[in-house]
């Protein structure tokens, strides 16, 4: 092998290996700053104004009625958590039970430092870990940014339930497939609001298209300091919280 040929070979090898490394690096996320790719068309999101929630539970009931979610208290597409943070640092949390008769609260419980309600639902993540792990592609993110479950091909392995950091999924006892909030896809696709937003008496829940110039959601995002749940997991949630307390996970 003469010098020129050897050079050519080495050069080609370098190109190939460089290409291989480059291709591998493409797997890494590009920029630390760009959050989501700019989109055209609808890109649905959701706002929760923690300060407005009165914990009445209408949303939980409406969701179960609208979406045929089993009545038993083990299956929820949305729920409301009540936080009581006491002066001694203890934090007590529970899921409210909308059917229960309200227990009269002591007029003034001096041990309470602060207390509030937090509505929860599927965060419809832009980078959903549940979709990543589904072995059969039975859950996926639609073009308009809603994570859906295909109940005809879901095999019921429950890997997505394990992968969801927010506990938003359950196994439907009726279909034996994974189930979750769809933003009421059948409603929003005909211009209606999700049932929970529809019935919320205080506008603590706001739904809309994140690409719309003027909408209750875009105004909500403009006027408030916004937080999402578990941002460290890089799931890019599209359920945005205003005035979220640090104790909420």
């Amino acid at each position: 092998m003469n010098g020129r040929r050897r050079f050519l070979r080495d050069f080609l090898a370098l190109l190939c290996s460089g290409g291989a490394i480059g291709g591998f690096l493409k797997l890494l996320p590009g920029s630390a700053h760009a959050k989501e790719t700019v989109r055209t068309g609808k890109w649905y999101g959701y706002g929760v104004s923690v300060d407005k929630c009165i914990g009445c539970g209408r949303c939980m009931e409406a969701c179960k009625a609208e979406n045929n979610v089993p009545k038993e208290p083990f299956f929820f597409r949305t729920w409301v958590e009540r936080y009581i943070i006491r002066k001694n640092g203890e934090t007590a949390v529970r899921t409210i039970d909308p059917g229960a008769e309200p227990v009269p609260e002591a007029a003034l419980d001096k041990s309470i430092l602060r207390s509030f309600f937090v509505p929860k639902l599927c965060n419809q993540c832009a980078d959903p870990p549940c979709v990543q792990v589904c072995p059969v592609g039975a859950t996926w993110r639609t073009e308009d940014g809603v994570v859906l479950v295909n109940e005809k091909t879901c095999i019921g392995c429950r890997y997505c339930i394990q992968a969801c950091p927010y506990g938003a999924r359950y196994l439907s006892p009726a279909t034996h497939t994974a189930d979750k909030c769809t933003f009421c896809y059948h409603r929003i696709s005909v211009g209606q609001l999700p049932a929970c937003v529809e019935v919320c008496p205080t506008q603590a829940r706001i739904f809309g298209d994140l690409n719309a110039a003027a909408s209750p959601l875009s105004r909500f995002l403009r006027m408030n300091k916004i937080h999402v749940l578990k941002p460290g997991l890089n799931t890019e949630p599209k359920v945005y919280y205003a005035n979220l307390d640090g104790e909420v996970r």
Partner: protein
Amino acid sequence: MVKFPEKMPDSLARLLVVFVVLTAVLAIAWVMIPTPMKSVHVQWDNAILREKAKPMRYAGAHACEECHGEIYGKKKAGYHRDLSCETCHGPAKTHTEDPDKTKPAIPATRSFCVQCHAYNPSRPRGFPQINPQGHNPLKPCAGCHNPHDPKPPTTPKECSACHGEIARTKAVSHHVQLECTTCHQAPQQHKITPRGVKPTKPQNREFCGKCHAKDTRETREKLAKSAPKIDMAEHGEKYVCWQCHYPHSPEVEN
């Protein structure tokens, strides 16, 4: 038997045949499987159609206006203006399709209204809340308040009618003996249009100092005399008093 090339060992040749047969069977099977079973994209499109075809139970905020225009208009002008009809009356899609077939619920019990309006320390301040045990027990809410235009039936005399939480808080605080009007001047109009005309609030340190300054001259009142005293020049002079002490339940070191 097929003649294999001289060099290939007999065992390898046989395994190759098995491999080729297996691959062929799999390949044929793959071709024969219909596309909807192999393509997630086809499956997704179908699933979206199924999802969109699911029936609605809630008719939406505007569905009721067509037939119930009067009540709808009334609600729009009152404090319940942002509530959907279905928040209280429940899902009504079937009623909109055939009004005679199903009738939406008309919740009339106290237990329904208090799901939103019972006092609960987790509820945001300012949200109208009552103590169900103390507030006209056993009387149905709708007897006094029209749910489509809820407001107090008569102009309230006491501040506590609306500011129950503050009243309850003050009742167990060091300021229990102070009248609301000691610190706030509430014009009569405030009781009629509470958000239009607001009561006054103390503006400066000196206001609190009238009772709490150590050199106060306000000693006529017995209460002011017994109030804890501080040196206004030394004690937190950078701040106004209510930045540290909530006036309705002043925090003090005991």
